[in-house]
Each structure stands twice: as C-alpha cells, then as structure tokens.
C-alpha cells in the first residue's frame, strides 16, 4: 500500500510540475495582457512534434528537447508579433474566436507535415529502466521529469521574484497602465514573456512526449487542465500557478489511483467499479468549483 501511495504521489508531483510549465506561461499572458489564449495548448503540441522530429534526426533526446524549445520559442514570438498583438485591446470573446481559429490552423498544419498517426518519441535509453530509491523502484525517466520540473520552477521563481525583468512582469500583471506610465516597454516585455511561455510549453511537450502519445489534439485536453490550474491559483500569479499545478496534479493522479480502492471498502464492488473512475475524473473540477465558490478569484489573486 505505501509502495502504491508513494509511487502515485510521485507521479502526481511529476504531472503537476509539467502542468506548471504550461500554466506559468498561460497565467502571465492572461495576467499581463488580459488575453485568453486557447492556442497555448497548440504550442505544447508543436513543441512535442518538433522534439520528436529533432530527436529522430539527431538520434539524441537532449538535442531534440533543446531544438524543440528553441523552435517553439521562435514560433511563439512570431505568432505574438503577427496575430496576438492585435487582439490585446479586443474583448475576451474576440480573443476566444481568434485563438480557436489558431488551434484549427495549427492542428491542420501539424497534420499536413506529420500526418494523422501519432509520432514516436522515445526516452533516452540510459533512463529507460527503473531505479531503486529507499527500497522501492521508480522509472528513471519520470525522476528526470521531476528534476527538470523542480529546476525550471526554481529558475522561474528566481527570475520572477529576484530580477529586474521579473519585477516588470509582476508590475505588468498587477497594473499594466501604471507600468507603461513608468516607462516600461510592456509590448516588448510581452513578446519576451510569450516566447518564454512557448518555450516552457515545448519543454513540457518534449518531456511528456515519451509518456503520452504525440498526436494531433494532444494540446486541447491539457489546455483545459492548464486553465483549471490558473483559475484555481488566481490569474496572473506564478505562485498560484505552482500551487494550483501541484494540487491538480496530485489530486488527479491520487484520485484515479486511490478513489476506486477507497470506494470498494464501503460500497459493493459493482457500484464501486462504476463510480470510482467517474468520481476520479470529476474530482479536479469539483475541486475548482469548490475553490471558486469560497474564493471567487482564486487562491492567490494577482490584482489587488
């Protein structure tokens, strides 16, 4: 039992950290520019495909990841300059429509280049097996994901809270007009934030690629989770995104593993077998609805 619980807790942590990579960019875009970007999940998909292509071409997973991050950052910056920049002053509904259109275009573009079939992205061979930690074994590649996630989260935390650019970003998130009035070039700042957000998406896509399928539409399912995360955390707040990601990752993973087992202990097996998976899938949405019921603007509201 402890073995299962520990393993699932680690899986939850790993999933939460990857969600954080997506949510961090999304929450900043949302917080600073008040822009709903549904196409954020498409950048994650593009990142995963670029990683698969580069890894296949070079034979190295690391090169694949690096190329994906660089390539997706370029795509993100280009997208921001060409389309998204014109949408900041528009209402949320126009942003929803435009970025929905971008999803359609991105999905079709990927389909044209790579086809309908899922693409293979393999974890590096050295990390393919499990490792022993304190008497129980855990896949090495998942440990690497956790390590990368923790490192990036720390780096992001330092960048946002300790550097000058980070200060601008926080200032922009809490009051954009005032920040502009103080002489900060928010437009350029935003292109940078968007490119970094795209890079983080690509990193998440490349790291999760070997675990999940690299396929068209992979961005949409995770996009909703990323939105759940930033709404729970409070839009525009990096700290909120981190707490929200870990909460969603752990609750979702543990719920799926433990709820059916918990239900079996006091319900007849037949009912528990039906109810368990349903409740587990619903759990994070119940969590979000409950949090919004008691804290209608998330756990850590960025705007004062």
């Amino acid at each position, binding site marked *: 039992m402890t073995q299962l619980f520990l393993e699932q807790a680690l899986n939850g942590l790993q999933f939460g950290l990857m969600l954080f990579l997506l949510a961090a960019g999304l929450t900043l875009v949302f917080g600073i520019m008040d822009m709903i970007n549904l196409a954020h999940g498409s950048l994650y998909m593009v990142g995963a495909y670029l990683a698969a292509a580069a890894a296949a071409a070079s034979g190295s997973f690391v090169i694949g990841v690096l190329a994906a991050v660089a390539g997706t950052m370029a795509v993100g910056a280009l997208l921001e300059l060409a*389309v998204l920049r*014109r949408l900041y002053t528009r209402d*949320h509904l126009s942003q929803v429509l*435009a970025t929905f259109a*971008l999803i*359609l275009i991105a999905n079709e573009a990927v389909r044209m280049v790579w086809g309908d079939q899922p693409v293979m992205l393999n974890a590096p061979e050295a990390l393919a097996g499990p490792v022993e930690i304190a008497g129980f074994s855990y896949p090495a590649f998942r440990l690497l994901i956790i390590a990368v996630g923790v490192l990036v989260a720390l780096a992001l935390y330092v960048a946002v809270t300790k550097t000058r650019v980070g200060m601008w970003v926080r200032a922009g998130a809490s009051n954009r007009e005032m920040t502009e009035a103080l002489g900060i070039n928010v437009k350029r700042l935003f292109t940078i934030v968007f490119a970094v957000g795209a890079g983080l998406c690509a990193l998440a896509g490349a790291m999760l690629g070997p675990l999940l399928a690299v396929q068209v539409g992979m961005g949409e399912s995770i996009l909703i989770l990323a939105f759940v995360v930033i709404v729970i955390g409070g839009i525009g707040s990096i700290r909120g995104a981190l707490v929200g990601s870990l909460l969603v990752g752990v609750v979702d993973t543990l719920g799926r593993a433990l709820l059916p087992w918990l239900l079996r202990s006091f319900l007849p097996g037949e009912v528990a077998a039906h109810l368990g998976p349903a409740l587990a899938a*619903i759990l994070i*949405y119940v969590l979000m*609805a409950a949090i919004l019921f008691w804290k209608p603007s998330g756990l850590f509201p960025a705007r004062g």
Partner: protein
Amino acid sequence: MNSAIYRQSTRRRLLAAGVFTLLALLPPALQAFGQEFYISFAARVLIFALVATSLNFVVGFGGMVAFGHAAFFGAGAYTVAVLMEMGIASAFVSWPAAIAVAVLLAHGIGFVSLRTRGVYFIMITLAFAQMLYYLAISMKTWGGDDGLSLATRSGFGPLDLKHDPTFYWVALASLGLCLYLLDRITHARFGRVLQAIRENESRMEGLGYPVLGYKLLCFVIGAAMAGLAGALIANHGQLASPNLLQWTQSGTLLVMVIVGGVGALYGGAVGAVVLLLAEEVLAHYTTHWHAALGLILLLVVFRAPKGIAAWVHGLFARGEKHE
C-alpha cells in the same frame, strides 16, 4: 418616434416571416432537385441554430459568457435517450422532461456559478459541463464512450418524425417558436432590465433590482431552449453521444455565437448556418478544411469584429445613408 420603431419592427417581422416561409419550402425544393440527403443536414443546421440562439441569449443579452452550454444540450439529449430506454417514446413526455432536466441543472449550476465573474465564470461553467461529460462516459448503463442510441425517433402524435421532411418542419417550428419567444422577452420589461444589468450591474443593483435573480432566470431560459435542442439532436442522429457534452462542443457553440453576432437576436442562428455550411462546403473541396475554416474565422475577427449579423446590418445602413 414610437411609430418609427413600430414600423421598423413590423418590417423586420415581415422579413422574418418571409425567411421562415422560404425555409419551410426547402424540403420539397430539395426533393424536386433530387437532393433529399440535404434535408437531414438542413435539420441539423436548424437544431444547432436553436442551441446557438439560446446561448446567444445568455451571452449577448444576459452578458454571461457561459462556456458550459453543452451541458444542457447534452442533458436534453440524454434525457430523451434514457426515457426511450425505459420505454417512454412519446415526445409529449420526453421532450418536456428534457427541458425540465436542463432547467433543474441550470438552477443548480447557475446558483453556484453566478457568484463569480468574468473569466472565473467562464471556467466554473466549463467545470460543471466537464463533470457531466465525465459522468456520461463513465456510466456504462448509458453506453459510456459510445453514447446511448435510440431505438427509434420519438412519437409525436399523428406526425411521423422518421419522415425527414416532417422532422425538419418540427425543428423549424421549434426554432421559430424560440426566436419568437426571445424576441418578445428581449422587448419586454424583463429583457430591458436584463440588458441594463449587462451594461451596468452595480447601478441596477443600486436601483434595487434583484440582479442575481434576473441573471439566473436568463441563464435558465437559455438552458431550457438548449434542452429542447438536445431532445431534437438525440432524435436527429438517434443517438445521445457524450461528444454533445464535451467542452469542444461548448466552444463550437460559442464560436457560432461570436461569428453570427453577440447580442443580435438572429446572431446565433446566422453563426450556426455560416459555420456548418462553411464546414460542409470546405470539406467538399479540400481535406485540409480545418485550416481554411480557421483562416475564415480569423478574417471574421479582424474584418467583422461584431459578427456577421452586425456586419451585414452595417452594409445595409451604409447603403441607406448614401441613398
């Protein structure tokens, strides 16, 4: 002043009556050209026009950007399918039941969701719709992932819904009835108050209006019409599919509303017709029609920012000024 408004609305009603007469003549016209296949497609378009119209009432007139409208659409469909499974096939029982289920759901969801605002409202409505979606796919007795199929179409008194033109006319009548009701509602006191709340909520609250009650009722009316559309769509494909509940469905409906024109009475219907026709036509010419559709939507965002209904209206208004 009053007579001008009256004249204008008479002209508009005449125009609407004309359009509906033409639409009613569509099935025989299609049969005359040997294109019966398209009658079923046209019925589908009408059903989506209905559900998009109901969403437009909530978004455009109530000012609530609901991202979970699929919940009521799907709930209506599942109600009809489940009742049929239990042996109740009469539309006079199962369609009102579909509406009732949607209304009950909307009361619960609206009561909790209306505490939040803006993006948080968008997300909490989405959350409730997702809960229903996962509930539907995990209920093995309701078909799980595959959905619940209907043995036959609902019985509708002397009318045979299995006859495609009849089904089309029933769908058209439902859409016409709902549009008429919404036209009356938006011009009545309730509708005026609702639009005033959309423009300035705190002022209306200060004037002593029970803002929350008005918004909740608007949300519920929209859901009721979506429930009816759900009952129709379940009959149309003889299937209540979990896809009806998925968030992409809510997204598509919202896109229809925005494309057609938020807050225009016919906006939802126009958007549904344009989007579904564009899909059908583009898919005919290229397998990469998603990309083409995306480009068209971008064009709408940048060229017709208030939607096609407003854009067309603007073209006419400009024309009149030049006369």
